[in-house]
């Protein structure tokens, strides 16, 4: 089991009633982006539908995933998380895309 650090955008921190980073535990071999998001939504059910669409589990269009200065937004959910995220050296950042006014 691995504890992954997750940074949520302000609106989702408010919604989940958390401050700062959150830690999410994911299982050994299933250390993928999809598994992380599943675990995050299980820990904070209010985030269901806010990061990924209900049903399809597609990333919402104006949500981005960054880690270790890389944009992981377009990686399929089966993509393993970067080693630095799994080792706890880097957080997995969920970001509201810069858009609008």
């Amino acid at each position, binding site marked *: 089991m691995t504890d992954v650090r997750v940074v949520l955008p302000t*609106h989702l921190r408010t919604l989940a009633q958390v401050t700062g980073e959150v830690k999410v535990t994911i299982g050994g071999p299933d250390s993928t982006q999809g598994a992380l998001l599943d675990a995050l939504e299980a820990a904070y059910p209010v985030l269901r539908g806010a*990061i990924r669409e209900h049903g399809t589990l597609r990333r*919402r*269009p104006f*949500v981005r995933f960054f880690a270790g200065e890389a944009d992981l937004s377009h990686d399929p959910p089966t993509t393993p998380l970067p080693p630095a995220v799994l080792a706890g050296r880097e957080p997995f950042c969920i970001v509201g895309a810069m858009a609008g006014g």
Partner: protein
Amino acid sequence: MSGVRVLVGTRKGAFILTADGKRRDWKVEGPLFGGWELYHLKGSPADPDRLYASQSTAWFGQQIQRSDDGGRSWKPVGNEFAYDGETGTHQWYDGTPHPWEFARVWHLEPSLSDPDVVYAGVEDAALFRSSDGGQTWQELSGLRGHGSGPHWQPGAGGMCLHTILLDPRDAERMIVAISAAGAFRTEDAGKTWTPANVGLHSEGIPDGDAEVGHCVHHLARHPSRPDVVYMQKHWDVMRSDDGAQTWREVSGNLPTDFGFVIDVHAHEPDTIYVVPIKSDSEHYPIDGHLRVYRSRTGGDDWEELGDGLPERDCYVNVLRDAMAVDTMDDCGIYFGTTGGQVYVSTDAGDRWAPIVHDLPAVLSVEVQTLP
């Protein structure tokens, strides 16, 4: 009556304005859900402490918030609005088929008798119902599937179901309105629906008298006369005397019959209010004068009401859900603007005063008259 609670939805949060029965000194609370769009908040007629709010952003989607203590605290409830069965298609702006896609909840209408029952009008247009206080939502798919759905097209603001009128005589009877499909009515709790647009005429659609395709902006009626329904259409103010089966125009002497809001005095079923807007491409009052118009004859004859409203340089809009009335003995009329003002009249529209000046753009105004 002890006072009023005004629920204001804006582009950047919700505000709650409260006052005693005199409605002179106001307490302003908010923003609640700061930074989110609050398309609509509404209280249960059966339990004034039960409030529902539609909270959304393009970034993080839809949330429904519920309060059980009159707005002092809130908790998120269910936010999954899954279309029932085959999703199907409607027409896109270019006339091509486009799959129904949920975008947001425009309007929440709590049941008249059960605080746990609430209806949601959504974009892309559909009607949902919750019977567990908003925890879960089921589509009343007979509306979207009644036959004309594939021909519906969005208006400029999206294809939204924005008005839900519940019938105080019979919980199975409802009228809803969709931009830009028109009005629809059901007499069997939403299983089957009938287009309710006979008598509407719209420029800008191929058949101006079509069964569907009209851009209805808002509907209103008085609970004592449910068969009399008033409509602010894209252009034209309309009236039905037979429960929306047929309509006739009552724009009369209005300076422009374009607008978004329409509402009815709490104690005078023939007294109605609109806010004329210059045109469909100029969404502001004529000549920068913000004016409410009142008819005491159920339409046709209108009088200008401007005492206390801006006389010049006012170029705001008043959106479709941004007018409400209280049920105090001296009926209060309220409306909010895209400039962030919320105005009140405590004498049925003769004189107006701002409650607040500088909120974010106001999307909706509802008022509860508290016991």
